[in-house]
C-alpha cells in the first residue's frame, strides 16, 4: 500500500520533485561558488526582482492550462501603470488613479477575452495584436515623459518592507496571491473547469461548462493582475515610463512552461510553476553573482527550457518505441559533423576579427 501510494505520489508530482531537486542542486552550486549567495539580506533583496514576474505567472498558468496564451500581459502592465502615472501627474489622487487604471485593465482583458472566446480568434494572434496595441497606448499616454513623485504610501507597495523585518511587502502580496490562485486552480470548480477546457473545449461545452464566460474571466483576471504587477513595478521604480516591463511576457511564459504546464493545455500545477519561478530566480541570481553576462544568462535559461521539455519526451521514446536502425547512426554522425564544423567556423571566423 505504501509503495503504491509512493508510486502515485511520484506519477502525480514527478515534475515538481525534479524541480525541487534542481533547485537544491543550483542552490548548492551557488553557495559553493559565491560567499554572497546564502545571505538573507541578499536573498530577500533579490526576491523583489522577481515579484512582478511571479505575480504574472499566476494568471498565465490559468490561461495556458486552458490551452490559450496571453502575450499582451506586459503591455497591459505598461498601459495600467502609465495610465495611473498619467492621471497622477494630472493631479489625481494616486489611489483613485490606480482604481481607474484597474478599470481600464478590465476593459483590456475583456477585449482579449471577447475576441478569443466569442469571435473564436486564435489567442496567439489576438494577444500579439493587443501586445502592440496596449503598449502603443502606454506610449500615447506618457510619450517621452516619466510619471514620478509618487507618495511614499504608494511606493511602499514596491519598496517597503514588513515592519522591522527585511521582508519586502510585495513578497507578501505575491505569497497571498499564489496561495489564492493555487487553491482556486486545484480545489475549486472553476479550477476543474480550466483543466476540462484545456483538455477538450467542446466536450466541456457539451457538459455544460460555461466555456466562453470562463475564458473571458481568466483574460480579465490576467489583465487585472497585470495591472497590479504594474503598480508594484511602478512603486518599486518610483516612476513610470511607457517602456516599463518591456518583453516580460517571454520570461513569464518560459517560467510557466518550465513549471510543467503543457503549452497545449490541460496539465500542470501551480506548485510546479512557483517552483520554476524559484529555480529561475536563484539561477539568475547565482549567475549574476558569478558575473555571467545577461546574454549568457539568457542562453542558459533558453537551454534549460528546451532541455526540460526535450528530456522527458526522449526518455519516453527510448523506453517504448525505440528501435535501433543503422540509418540513425549515419544521421547522428552527420549531425555531429555539422555541429563540429559549425562550432569550428564560429570560433575561427570570430578570431579573424577579434585576435588580429
Amino acid at each position, binding site marked *: 500500500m505504501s509503495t503504491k501510494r509512493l508510486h502515485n505520489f511520484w506519477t502525480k508530482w514527478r515534475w515538481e520533485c525534479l524541480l525541487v531537486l534542481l533547485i537544491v542542486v543550483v542552490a548548492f552550486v551557488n553557495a559553493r561558488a559565491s560567499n554572497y549567495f546564502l545571505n538573507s539580506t541578499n536573498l530577500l533583496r533579490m526576491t523583489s526582482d522577481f515579484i512582478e514576474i511571479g505575480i504574472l505567472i499566476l494568471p498565465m498558468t490559468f490561461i495556458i492550462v486552458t490551452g490559450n496564451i496571453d502575450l499582451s500581459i506586459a503591455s497591459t502592465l505598461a498601459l495600467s501603470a502609465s495610465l495611473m502615472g498619467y492621471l497622477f501627474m494630472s493631479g489625481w489622487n494616486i489611489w483613485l488613479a490606480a482604481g481607474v487604471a484597474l478599470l481600464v485593465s478590465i476593459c483590456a482583458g475583456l477585449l482579449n477575452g471577447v*475576441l478569443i472566446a466569442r*469571435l*473564436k*480568434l*486564435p489567442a*496567439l*494572434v*489576438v494577444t*500579439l*495584436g*493587443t*501586445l*502592440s*496595441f*496596449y*503598449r*502603443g*497606448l502606454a*506610449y*500615447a499616454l506618457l*510619450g*517621452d515623459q516619466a510619471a514620478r513623485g509618487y507618495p511614499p504610501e504608494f511606493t511602499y507597495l514596491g519598496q517597503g518592507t514588513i515592519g522591522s523585518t527585511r521582508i519586502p511587502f510585495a513578497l507578501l502580496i505575491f505569497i497571498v496571491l499564489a496561495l489564492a490562485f493555487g487553491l482556486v486552480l486545484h480545489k475549486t470548480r472553476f479550477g476543474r473547469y480550466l483543466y476540462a477546457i484545456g483538455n477538450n473545449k467542446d466536450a466541456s461545452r457539451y457538459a455544460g461548462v460555461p466555456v466562453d464566460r470562463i475564458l473571458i474571466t481568466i483574460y480579465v483576471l490576467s489583465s487585472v493582475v497585470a495591472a497590479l504587477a504594474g503598480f508594484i513595478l511602478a512603486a518599486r521604480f518610483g516612476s513610470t515610463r511607457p517602456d516599463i516591463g518591456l518583453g516580460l511576457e*517571454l520570461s513569464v*511564459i*518560459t517560467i510557466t*512552461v518550465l513549471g510543467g504546464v503543457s*503549452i*497545449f493545455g490541460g496539465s500542470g500545477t501551480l506548485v510546479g510553476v512557483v517552483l520554476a519561478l524559484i529555480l529561475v530566480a536563484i539561477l539568475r541570481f547565482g549567475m549574476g553573482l558569478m558575473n555571467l*553576462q545577461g*546574454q*549568457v544568462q*539568457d*542562453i542558459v*535559461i*533558453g*537551454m534549460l*527550457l*528546451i532541455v526540460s*521539455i*526535450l528530456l522527458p*519526451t*526522449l526518455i519516453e*521514446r527510448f523506453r517504448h518505441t525505440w528501435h535501433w536502425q543503422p540509418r540513425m547512426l549515419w544521421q547522428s554522425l552527420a*549531425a555531429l559533423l*555539422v555541429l563540429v564544423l*559549425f562550432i569550428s*567556423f*564560429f570560433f575561427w*571566423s*570570430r578570431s*579573424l*576579427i*577579434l585576435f*588580429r
Partner: protein
Amino acid sequence: MVTETRAIDAPHRGLVQTFVRFREIGLIAFIVVLAFFVTLRNPVFLTFNNLRDIVLNISILVIVALAQAMVIITRGIDLSVGSTIGLSAMMVSFMIAAMPELSPWLMLPLGMLIGAILGSFNGTLIALGRVPPIIATLGTLSIYRGLIFLYSGTKSTINAYEMPPAFRQIAKGAPLGIPNLILFAVAVAVIVFLFLRYTRVGRDIYTVGSNPDAARFAGIPLQRTLFLVYLISGLLCGLAGVLWASRFESAQNNTALGFELQTVAAAVVGGVSTLGGSGRVIGVVLGAFLLGVINNALTLIQISPFWQQAAQGLLILLAVIVDATISGRLQRMIGGRS
C-alpha cells in the same frame, strides 16, 4: 449518387466560393482604401519614390514572412527568426570584414548555410525531439541572440567602413534598373510559390499542416517535412541576414531584434491560418505590403510618433478581425464542415 443539397443555390454559391478562394481580395481592398485616405491627407504617398521606399522596406520582411508562413502552415511557429537573421548578419559581416578581398556574392551562400544550420537545429528539436515549436523556438530565440553576443565579443559592431563597397552592393545595387533587394524578394516569393505549388515536398507541407494524423497514415514523411520546413525557414533567415547587413551597412548585437513579431503579423494578416494547412504566397506578400503601407502612412499623415505603435497594433487587430469574421461567415454560407 450521394449528393447533399445545400442551403445556397448554385450561382450565389459560386460567387461566394470564388471570394473565399481568393480572400486576398479583402486585403487588397483594405490596402486600397487605406492608400486612398492617406493620399488625401498627403499626396506624397502615391509618388514613385515613396512607393519604392515602401517596397524596399518590406523586401526583407517578405522573405522572412514567407519562411514564417511555411512554418505556420505546418501548425508551427518560428520565434527564432530575428535571432537567426542577427547571427547570420553578424557572422557574414565578420567574414567580409576579415576578408574584404573575397567575392561578396560568396556571402550569400555562406549566410544561407549558417541560417540553414541554425534552422535545422530547430527542426531537430521539433521533428525529432517532439518539442512544441513555440517552446523550441522561444528557447533558440534567446540562445541564438546570446550567441551573437558571444560571437561579436569586444567588437560588438561591424561598421560601414569595414565593409567593402561591393558587399553593400548586394542589396543596394540595381544593375537591372530595379534595386537588387526587391529582386531578391521577388525571386524568393516566386521560388517559394513554385515550391509550395509544384513540388511534392511543397504539397506535403500543406498536407502535414492540414491533418497531421491523416498525413502519417497517408505515408507522408511527417518528421522529415517538419525538419525541412524549419531548415528552409533558417535558410531564408540566413539570406535575410546577409541582405540586412548589406542594406544597413552594419551588423550589431541587436540586429533584427523583435523581428519575429512582424513576420508573424505579416503572415497572419496575409491569411495564413495559425490552425495550419492554409496560406498562400500572394497573401503573405500582401500582408507584408499592408504592414509596410501602415508604417509608411502613419509617418506621412503626421500621426504623433507616440500614437504610432497603438495605431499599428489596432490596424493589425482590425485586419485580423475583419478577415476572420468575413471569411468565417462566408465559410458557413457555403456549408463547410467545421
